């Protein structure tokens, strides 16, 4: 074959290569800056079970494929990694992880403490909705990556008359010792305030209605646990209803448990999780950790990751997972949020200790 190499041909090839590069998630950095040295791996803290499986499929595997950098998932609990990171930053040590997948409330504490890196230069932030921005914090010390609802999950066979309509339905005597809440009360305080006859506007000033309703619930002798417990308890037939994140209910359903969930008339708490990077990483590792989060905000990663979690993301036009379209646990339109309760992280973290102590006081009695 005889090919003539012309000036126009070289220009065309250059344009085509450049255009293709622009379509990749790392285009800007590749074109405008020299990529820093790649570490052999980055460590991402994650929740286990279906949670980490979804992250791996949606973000970590794609990141490794694109960059060649392995991703190790550290399944240390979010609450337990926090003091380790704080201690590492305070002592000027390299933190134990590169990226922390965290609740927005927990992450906000770290942001207030000043141990988070600024993420406002991530290219994919431009394509995110307002949900990505942490409320009450300057800039982007963390990036919210999806929202979730603390639904009322229930076993349909225990509710032959149909889905429970109110949180007060949990007070039915036949549900004694058959319900479960989170062991710090998270997700339950705000609907309890409404179910107890109070008003959301009174939070945090007057939460008597909330505590009164939680006292009533206490008489039902609920089980108190964490994410994996709910799935196990439903699976082992220990409980008939629980206030839990819809993802756990979805996971239990995937495991073959007949489970449904609803948003009762008093509403459900809506909250967000996010990703953040602790301070103290070497420059090159910080760069690649940022690229990891940037990828997590890409349309493709959000679609795969959140299909696994069954949760609404922070980029527009994601396709809801099968069966979750118009589901109350998958709010996307403004009207979907009407029955969901969202209280700012600032109020939550300022009052968390007090609420926790009060919840414990009632439940440990």
């Amino acid at each position, binding site marked *: 074959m005889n090919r003539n190499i012309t000036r126009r041909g070289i220009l065309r090839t250059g344009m085509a290569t450049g255009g293709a590069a622009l379509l990749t998630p790392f285009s800007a950095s590749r074109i405008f800056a020299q990529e820093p040295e790649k570490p052999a791996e980055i460590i991402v803290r994650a929740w286990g079970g279906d949670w980490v499986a979804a992250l791996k499929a949606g973000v970590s595997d794609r990141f490794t494929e694109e960059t060649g950098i392995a991703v190790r998932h550290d399944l240390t*609990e979010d*609450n*337990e990694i*926090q*003091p380790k990171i704080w201690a590492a930053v305070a002592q000027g040590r390299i933190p134990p992880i590169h990226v922390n997948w965290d609740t927005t409330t927990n992450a906000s*504490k*770290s942001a*207030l*403490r*000043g141990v988070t890196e600024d993420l406002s230069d991530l290219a994919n932030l431009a394509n995110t909705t307002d949900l990505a921005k942490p409320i009450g914090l300057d800039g982007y010390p963390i990036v919210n990556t999806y929202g979730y609802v603390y639904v009322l999950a229930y076993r349909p066979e225990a509710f032959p008359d149909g889905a429970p309509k109110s949180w007060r339905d949990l007070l039915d005597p036949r549900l004694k*010792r058959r319900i479960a809440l989170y*062991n*710090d009360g998270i997700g339950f305080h705000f609907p309890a305030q409404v179910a107890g006859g109070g008003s959301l506007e009174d939070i945090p000033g007057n939460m008597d209605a909330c505590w009164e309703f939680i006292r009533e619930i206490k008489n039902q*002798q609920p*089980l*108190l*646990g964490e994410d994996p417990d709910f799935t196990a308890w439903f699976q*082992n*037939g*220990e409980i008939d209803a629980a206030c839990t994140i819809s993802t756990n209910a979805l996971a239990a359903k995937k495991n073959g448990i007949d489970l449904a969930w609803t948003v009762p008339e008093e509403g459900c708490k809506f909250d967000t999780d996010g990703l953040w990077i602790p301070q103290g990483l070497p420059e090159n590792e910080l760069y690649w950790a940022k690229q990891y989060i940037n990828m997590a905000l890409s349309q493709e990663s959000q679609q795969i990751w959140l299909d696994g979690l069954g949760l609404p993301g922070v980029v527009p036009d994601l396709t809801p997972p099968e069966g979750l379209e118009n589901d109350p646990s998958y709010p996307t339109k403004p009207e979907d949020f009407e029955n969901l309760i969202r209280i700012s992280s600032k109020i939550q*973290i*300022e009052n*968390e*200790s007090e609420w*926790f*102590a009060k919840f*414990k*006081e009632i*439940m*440990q*009695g």
Partner: protein
Amino acid sequence: MPRDSEDRSFRYPLKWRIMDGLNAALDLLWPRRLGRYTGWALLTPALLLVGILVLGLFQIAENSLHTLDTSTFLPGEEYTLANYLIVAESPTYWRIIWRSLLGAGLTVFFTLLLALPYSYMMVRTNKAALRKTLLIVLFLPFFIGQVVRAYGILIVMGSSGAVNDALGLVGIEPIRLLFNFPAVVFGLVQYMLPFAVLMLAPALTAIPRETETAASSLGANWLKVFRHVILPMAKPGLVGAALVVGTLSLTDFAMPAMLGGGSQDFIANAIYDQFFRTADQGLGSALALLLVALGSVIAGVVIAFFGAGTLGMRGRK
């Protein structure tokens, strides 16, 4: 002459020569003139470990004197006793402290109740097969971690577990056996039993069999022998076992967390909550110091009155 050549060809056995070599090396490293300090040298690693623990306690004590500033999530600058005041004024913490003490007390009682006959049979039986079986049954769960054992209990005693299945065979509806205080005590007793047997067995072995035979030949029945001979002579073992089981139970975290269903916290669970859930390290430190103080006082009182049993100290006469 032949004898002389035999002497010249004589060589000490290899083991002896190795020991001589080691002795010579030891002389170089630790000359004989330092012999009077040998005890201290042997103690040094342990003292270093205890020293690190004490340093940690000082750090915890310092932390406990600062309250958490929730606007920055850093400890406040001021020194204050506010964290101790929070504990003192909180009915929740008093309840948790009382539950921990009661749980530890009941665990000691039931564990010793089960461990004494078990140990007695183990050391007194003439059948080697039975002794081995008892040892294996004792040590098998010992090699499994506490968390795995608690999971085992969750499976066996759950609403659809083996125990409820067995109850179902005699027409009893499934009952909630888990996630309550008795379940926590049950888990602790199950966990502590090998510790107690290990502490008791040497004490029982030390009781001469002839003493029991003498008591019997003087007309004492089995119960009297047990009451007047075995029990008093096994006291060092009982005290040592009670101390170990009591302190481990008082500070336990996993059993209340896993078998208590979230509403049967012990002090260790409350400490965890403050350190890891609310990020209030000051309050967590105050609770941790109170737990150390509580455990130390109880152990001190027991040792003062009964001695430390097989742990090797003598009590008040």
